[in-house]
């Protein structure tokens, strides 16, 4: 399960930056569309990364005590 959320989180980071790169090279011309993709990627990142990293943080604390 954790490997899946990790992959989703990393993909969401890729999806965050990809629209802006397409916009830079003129492959995506609508800035509002870029903003929407960024917002969607942001939401996915915070859900997936929280599941991935928060749990990891807690495990570290448990292991260290």
């Amino acid at each position, binding site marked *: 399960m954790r490997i899946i959320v990790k992959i989703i989180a990393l993909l969401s*980071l890729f999806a*965050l*930056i990809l629209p*802006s*790169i397409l*916009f*830079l090279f*003129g492959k995506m011309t609508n*800035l*509002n569309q*870029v*903003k*929407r993709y*960024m*917002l969607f*990627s*942001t939401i996915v*990142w*915070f859900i997936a*990364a*929280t599941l991935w*990293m*928060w749990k990891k*943080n807690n495990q*570290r*604390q448990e292991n*260290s005590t």
Partner: protein
Amino acid sequence: MSDAEFLNINNESNTSLEAEESSAAADTHRVGEEYERQPVPQHALLGFGSFIGMYAGEHCAGTELMIGSLFVAAGVGAFDLVVGLIIGNALAVLSWMLFCAPIATRVRLTLYYQLEKICGRNLVTLYNLANGVMFTILAGAMITVSATALGVWFNFKMPGLNDLVPNSVGWVVAVAAVGLLFAVCAAYGFKAISKFANVAAPWMVLVFLTFGIIMFRQFVDATQAEIHSAGDVWALCKTAIWKGGQPLPGQTKFTFWHVMFFAWFCNMAWHIGMSDLSVLRFARKSWYGSASATGMYVGHFMAWLAASMLFAFQLHQTHPNQYMIELLVQNNQAKYSQASLEKSPLTPDLIKEAMQIEDNLVNKGIIKQVDKKVSVPTPLPGPLAYSACGLAGLICVVIAGWTTANPTIYRAGLAFQAIMPKTSRFSVTLAIGMVATIAAMFPAIAMKLLGFVALYGLILMPMGAVIFVDFWLIQKFGLQSNYAQLTRKNFNWAAGLAWFVTLLIGWALVKFAHVQIFFVSLPGWFIAAILYIILSRIYQKKIHSAENGLI
């Protein structure tokens, strides 16, 4: 302590160039309350990778949005900015490698304990007080940055670039809401917010990068530039993005030297000021100080350039309003026309001329002082980020400010708590958060952030010089190092006076010799070092004579 624990603890303090560290008390927290008064043992030392992640995360924060934009307001040119940042950041990395890390990896003590051995407990308390005050003001700037995001939603009157005091009820209410939220969270849920900061850090770095990418394309479209080579990119940078020329009214003109010294010294408290002794004492080798390059070139290069492009594009797109056009045309019809001004970008020269005309009208009694309407474009991170990246940009501004303000308020609380140990951490943190909130209502702090950051480094730098001299040089002059520990003094007057007199000389250089504050720290370091040697010679002899007399 494992690598993971170290990173976890260090990332709790997260972000910010300016926010980070320094407080001795905060430093002890930052390294997990371990080895506070003993050298870090061999088995607890860490690898290079541990420091790379920590530095990269620490230096990409909300205040970068202000700093980048203020460079543009200061009329910086492309070469001056890019080359100044490359060299200034390299000097900062070298300062970590050659000043801080060699001592850190030899003594392996916290800044707090090292200072206590040299200066005595009472002087360290004073150092903590100075640190706590600076942290509180800095937290105020971070709250200001986040509060600008609320202006996009609620459309209240935002502060201007040259405003010193709050200018609308809406602004005061927004800052109060944001500041109190941050203060309560820092007091109640510091650890939870710190964990959240860890989650947000990679995303935030990429959003900063996105600001730059999108803005570059916007400039290409707005200027109809043809980009076929790196030379074309550089030409666009020079002619449209960082054009140089006059600064906006009320701002100091930034040259190559300003940028270089600012980049070098904006973290002065950490490297030359030795705050990062507490961190780098875990490093196996002193060259691990080079890991700070990740923070410098992600946060203090990429993020500053991206943030500066946001404000540069706002300036590029802004034209004189009808009021300004009328003032300029009526005053000089030969030079200006309605049609030409409507298409002209709003330049610092135009703003200054319109302000001058307005001042003349006030002097002649034609308009009142309160009716003056010529305003200077203001870098407000919220609206700037929203224009580039929409809601994701706005979220970035709030989170960048929050995750930075959280450890800053907390550390300020720890610094003050070290002075008043009987007070609970919760109430001190809450009180500091409230003071920071009040400070945040005054936009002068955020709008003058470049000067404040330079001042921050200057205030704490002399103690770094004291540590450096005490470790490397003082015995070569036949004097004792760690003198407070040796003589059980609570206040080493040689170190104390070296600190105070350096600050006094620095103040005099700024006030009377008109040396800009960005350039005072370099001579200041040598002044502090020389003073400490001379004063130690006098002080140590005096103490010995007194002791011999007693005997």
